[in-house]
């Protein structure tokens, strides 16, 4: 008898909680781990300044966040997706199929990507070409495409010390990887003339040539890090020759262990990134479900608070933490308060 009774009560508990679940009163956010620190700073300040409960911010990556965002409309789906890249056509389509049609895109600012090595080691002044020559699968030597023969940084650039090549770069599931490929490897590919050679080798097909450009060597010189920057840091601490790819904010919190390399002669900083001098940066976004505004208390207030001058402006806490303020913040603020959706004629 007791077993039947227990099962029944277990089911009853589940049923009661299922009905109770339909009263969510805090904003739920998920997505990019790059945006997570900024979102949690905003969420914390939001909880302090408003009568709404502090929003919940989960991480998991841009793609995972957008996937959950596109699962549908309703209180058991998230309200906001953070992303370190713009939403893709494919994802917009998947969203629309699940009924998520009105999406508000909010650009919060820019994030710099820096190259850093152990503080006690050699310092470097990179150009995109150096990185291409160091990591690409195929490079041009004497006018011919050959498998990358470089073993040390001195092979790559005669001005560099003869330190073994070892790079820790973000894995393919990270949004950062895309920026690294676009702004560094591809730029280097074009600058060294390998792009033309690859165009030629691939029958003048631009897409195929780009793909060949960003295919990296697989002999252990370049190591994909699927975890967080803390893992990259740990790898560099155990292998002093390593050079890692970090977010600017992470580097700025660990200046006692890392030294940063310049890129094309520019030292990365919030200033040099906001002026566009430092080349490797990318915009950060969050996406809001318009259908949830008015249903989930505090959602619109959260979005507006996030992009307000006090928070996302150049003197705000986000900028202090390492976000590069968006020069067009006023436009974003207007769009958020007007609830302008993507693809609309707002």
């Amino acid at each position, binding site marked *: 008898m007791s077993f039947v009774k*227990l099962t029944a009560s277990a089911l009853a508990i589940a049923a009661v909680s299922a009905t109770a679940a339909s009263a969510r009163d805090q904003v739920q956010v998920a997505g990019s781990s790059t945006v997570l620190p900024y979102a949690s700073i905003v969420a914390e300040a939001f909880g302090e300044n408003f009568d709404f409960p502090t929003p919940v911010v989960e991480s998991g990556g841009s793609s995972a966040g957008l996937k959950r965002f596109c699962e549908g409309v309703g209180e058991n789906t998230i309200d906001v997706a953070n992303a370190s890249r713009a939403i893709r056509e494919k994802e917009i389509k998947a969203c629309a199929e699940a009924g998520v049609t009105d999406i508000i895109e909010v650009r919060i600012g820019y994030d710099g990507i820096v190259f850093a090595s152990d503080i006690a080691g050699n310092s470097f002044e990179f150009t995109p070409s150096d990185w291409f020559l160091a990591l690409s699968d195929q490079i041009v030597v004497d006018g011919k495409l050959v498998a990358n023969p470089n073993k040390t940084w001195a092979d790559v650039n005669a001005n560099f010390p003869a330190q073994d090549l070892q790079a820790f770069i973000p894995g393919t599931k990270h949004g950062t990887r895309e920026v690294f490929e676009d702004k560094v490897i591809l730029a280097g590919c074009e600058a060294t003339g390998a792009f033309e050679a690859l165009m030629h080798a691939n029958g003048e097909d631009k897409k195929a040539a780009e793909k060949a450009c960003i295919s990296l060597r697989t002999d252990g010189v370049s190591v994909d890090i699927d975890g967080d920057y803390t893992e990259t840091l740990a790898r560099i601490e155990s292998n002093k020759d390593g050079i890692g790819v970090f977010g600017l904010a992470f580097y700025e919190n660990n200046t006692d262990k890392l030294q940063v390399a310049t890129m094309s002669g520019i030292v990365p900083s919030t200033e040099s990134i906001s002026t566009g001098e430092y080349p490797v940066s990318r915009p950060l976004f969050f996406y809001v479900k318009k259908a949830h505004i008015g249903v989930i208390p505090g959602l619109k207030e959260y979005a507006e608070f996030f992009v307000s001058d006090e928070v996302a402006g150049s003197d705000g*806490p986000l900028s*202090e933490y390492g976000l590069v303020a968006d020069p067009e913040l006023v436009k974003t603020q207007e769009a958020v308060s007007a609830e302008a959706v993507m693809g609309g004629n707002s």
Partner: protein
Amino acid sequence: MSDTSKTSLLALSPRTKQRNAAEKRFRAYGVAAIAIGLLMLTVLVTNIFSRGTGAFQQTFVTVNVELLESKLDKKGNRDLEDIKKVTTFGYNPLIRDSVVAKVEELGIQTDLKAKDLGGILSKGAVGQLREFVIANPDKIGETIEFRFLAQSRVDGYLKGRVHRESIGNDKSISAEQLDLVDQLVDAGVIVKSFNMDFITGADASDQRPEAAGIGVAMLGSLSMMFVVLGLALPIGVAASIYLEEFAPKNRLTDIIEVNISNLAAVPSIVFGILGLAVFINYMHLPTSAPLVGGLVLTLMTLPTIIISTRAALKAVPPSIRDAALGVGASKMQAVFHHVLPLAAPGILTGTIIGLAQALGETAPLLLIGMVGFIASNAPETLADGLLAPNSAMPAQIYEWAKRADPAFYERAWGGIIILLVFLVTMNTLAVILRRRFERRW
């Protein structure tokens, strides 16, 4: 035969010597194995304690804040709605001025700007101040003494984590600020003391590691353990009693038995995926809720409890059942009046060990949204505790270990100490229960 006739009982034969040597070697291996194990444990424990104890102490700065009416309540009518309109950003100047006033009062010469002077305080100070003003609007206009947290770099400097040589590129702290800190420490304005907030407080954002605490996550873990205990214990015990005492021994029960043992070996992440699919996507339970975490961990703990309960029931000698049945007890009476009480210590031990295992589990929680910046609202009611988003202790530790600021790393180790205290307590309880109540036949 001539060989054997010569052997003496006192002189060992080569064969005996060999066997004795083998035994000696084996003993040495055993001692070495234990020594290695103990060494590892010592290294682990000293490591954890040397890195983690810092989290239980925090640096505080005592200053006098003038609650300017002109900043906090421009209209001067103490209307709470008007006071609430001043956001925490509006409190920054007050905080800054309070440090400037303190420095002037002590007669310390410094070239630092007001902004850098205020920078030695935690960014959470404004929140603390605003909360106080909203709770006590009548205090506006007065000068009140506050004890604020120092920012994490200052705290790290006092704890020896931040060194003067390594702050060259650091934007959060400068050598001049550290000079000031040294003077303020001498004046007794900056003190390091025990930090209860680490044990009772909520998580804090990346900018204020000094304010982060594990308390809310602890409540999350506690709620999950309630769910696990409330579901896994009755279901597990009922299932094992039926299987052990009542079920016929046939192919079906054999299959069930094998599957329970298999279930015990399933990696916990699998239960996480199952929880996501069934409890969240199908049953529409809220994400990040300890209730869902508890349900998932129940699934994980059930096999452990069933296996240990069955072992405990099996250990009760059949003579006891026979005696009960012999004097006319029904099967159920025999089980509930005689077998179950004797098996109870074993069942409890199994349950506590199962709970301890569930308490330390992180993997399934990753998938049901309990990792991130979540444990920031302390639950107010029991239902809130089950349904409002929360994290759990191991998930919180994982989250801290990932964050950029090294101060969070220290907190992760501190969190491990607290988690270990819980686990050791639970396991000790299990040992005590077994010692006191277990009967052998």
